[in-house]
């Protein structure tokens, strides 16, 4: 009896990862074999959040290259040694280029990259590199700024809320850009920040948004992976700013004013092409508007057309490099001048940003 119970428990334990783990697809090698591309996601792309948008990029690459490439996806890969094993197994399967989409993969990817000089590695959102490893990310803050203009224009109270995951420079930069955008049209607007300390937790995200709404905010923006903060705003008749995907489509409500979105395909397609041609070189890439890595979803019909026109005009200016978010005098939210008038913030300062601009209520530390 006891033996049987141990056996059954073991069986349960071994069964669990089968269901939990991601699926890998392999195919027989043929004469003119397609180039194999490995993709590693931190979550399941079905989440309509961060990994979902990466997968849209992968799908775009699959459509572009057709049968010239074969993609092997690995989902729900933890940001620890497990990711090293995942990369090794992708290499065993014959992948020529590997993309990984989350920050904490970088150290593991660098380790694997050093051992496999004949494979190209692409890491998203980090800073480490190698002769055969690039890092890449996008200037999402530009879109945050534009969405801030729309939020500032549509808010009646001037109290905007922002549900943030972690106080990393990326999130802080986004909040600052959003605030600067809102205050460019409404100088008295404030942005209250609530940290959830999680990228993904529907209940906490919703609670955080509701506490902001209870506090009198009438527009909720977010740096989270579910639509819950936006849905909480819609339920109360307030407005929402999406993130990652087009929230207007996902929630079916025009109270979602606009969503800053990622377009990873614009980076993945040329990189895969370069790997094919043998012209691939290592780089640190921070893509912006000019290369379409970031974009705005269609704007809600509730937003007046002159606001939309103004936003589009600014977008063009950022494309032309005649305007950018962190140009000119900047004060932090304690009143200290952080940047003098006429100066332009360097990428280095943006990538380590750990302070809030004037108008943000909350602490970046």
């Amino acid at each position: 009896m006891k033996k049987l119970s141990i056996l059954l428990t073991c069986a349960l334990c071994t069964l669990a990862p089968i269901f939990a783990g991601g699926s890998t697809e392999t195919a027989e090698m043929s004469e003119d074999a397609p180039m194999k591309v490995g993709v590693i996601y931190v979550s399941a792309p079905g989440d309509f959040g961060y990994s979902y948008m990466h997968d849209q990029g992968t799908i775009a690459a699959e459509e572009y290259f057709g049968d010239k490439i074969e993609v092997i996806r690995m989902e729900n890969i933890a940001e620890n040694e497990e990711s090293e094993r995942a990369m090794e197994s992708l290499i065993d399967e014959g992948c020529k280029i590997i993309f990984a989409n989350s920050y904490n993969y970088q150290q593991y990817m660098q380790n694997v990259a050093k051992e496999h000089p004949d494979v190209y590695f692409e890491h998203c959102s980090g800073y480490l590199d190698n002769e055969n490893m690039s890092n890449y990310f996008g200037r999402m803050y530009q879109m945050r700024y534009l969405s801030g203009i729309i939020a500032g224009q549509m808010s009646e109270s001037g109290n905007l809320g922002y549900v943030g995951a972690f106080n990393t420079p990326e999130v802080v930069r986004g909040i600052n850009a959003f605030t600067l955008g809102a205050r460019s049209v409404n100088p008295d607007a404030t942005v209250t920040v609530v940290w959830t300390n999680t990228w993904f937790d529907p209940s906490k995200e919703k609670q955080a948004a509701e506490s902001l709404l209870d506090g009198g905010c009438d527009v909720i923006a977010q740096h989270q992976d579910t639509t819950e903060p936006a849905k909480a705003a819609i339920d109360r008749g307030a407005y929402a700013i999406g993130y990652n995907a087009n929230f207007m489509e996902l929630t079916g409500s025009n109270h979602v004013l606009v969503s800053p979105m990622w377009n990873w395909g614009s980076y993945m397609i040329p990189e895969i092409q370069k790997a094919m041609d043998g012209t691939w070189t290592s780089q640190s890439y921070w893509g912006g508007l000019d290369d379409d890595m970031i974009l705005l979803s269609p704007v809600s019909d509730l937003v007046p057309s002159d606001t939309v026109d103004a936003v589009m005009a600014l977008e063009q200016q950022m494309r032309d490099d005649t305007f950018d978010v962190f140009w000119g005098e900047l004060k932090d939210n304690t009143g200290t001048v952080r940047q003098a008038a006429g100066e332009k913030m360097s990428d280095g300062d943006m990538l380590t940003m750990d302070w809030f601009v004037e108008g943000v209520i909350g602490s970046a530390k």
Partner: protein
Amino acid sequence: MNSLDLITKLLAATLAMGTSLTYATLGEVFTEKSGVLNLGLEGTMLMGALSGFAVTFHTQSLMLGVIIAMLTGGLFSLIHAFLTISLRSNQVVTGLSITMFGTGLANFLGKRLGPVENNLNLVGLNLAAKFENIQIPLLHKIPVIGAFFDVSILTYLLYILLPLSWYFMYKTKHGLTLRSVGEAPRTAAAMGINVNKTRYIYTVLGGFFAGVGGAALSLSFTPSWNDSMTGGIGWIAIALVIFSAWNPARVAIGTLVFGGITSLQFFLQAAGFKMVIPVQFLAIAPYFITVVTLIIMTINSIKNKGSFASPSALGTPFAIDEK
């Protein structure tokens, strides 16, 4: 916003969020009272959340969704009961496997049970209806306690279930049977009580509650399906059982305290309150309070030379033939 108003809203947020937690905790109190530790709560809740959402999405019936969620939770706990009671496997290991299995299976099925238009995926779908808040006329307008009368039907049900559970456990013959099985199973067996049958009943009952707890999330609080959407509520519930000293009456206080802390940290941030205590600390507070409670209870039990509040036979399998 005046402070009375703020407290009312804080309470409302706590009740909305705490409903799922309370169901899971109450169920686990029943299970643990009978001497079975079920660490599979998180996985069981997730299966409840998934099945409830899937059924409601396809049938448009919220009631059917809750019932299926309840049965799924019960079924999952039945696996636990079979392994730990009949086969006498280690309750901790089995419970952990149930959580891993349930989490994996729920996330797997979440991509298989959706409609064809959405690639069979349940993620990203909205329900036609959810459990809406029902306001009791007049009562819901009272400051602070009015929050208790503006909640969903699932929360109202708890107002009945909590006192009923307490009464059942401490004032009825069946409750005495339940407690005796958890405290002194050999004595109970000598009295003619079928220990294993009793344990089966309350483990499955605990699963019913956990399933409804999951559905309270996917059909009421955050009406949607998301991978691992319970976000650790199952684990907080297990801590909460200890905090409430295995007493249904204290579960109510416990959920208000635990849920209240989570809501409070968001409210303080939203109010622009200069945080003296870092938010990261507030996030671990429920677990910290549990440790403190355990210490206090242990000291008290040593002082009074009494037994510890936990059921004495908790975690130990029972066999009539073992000497």
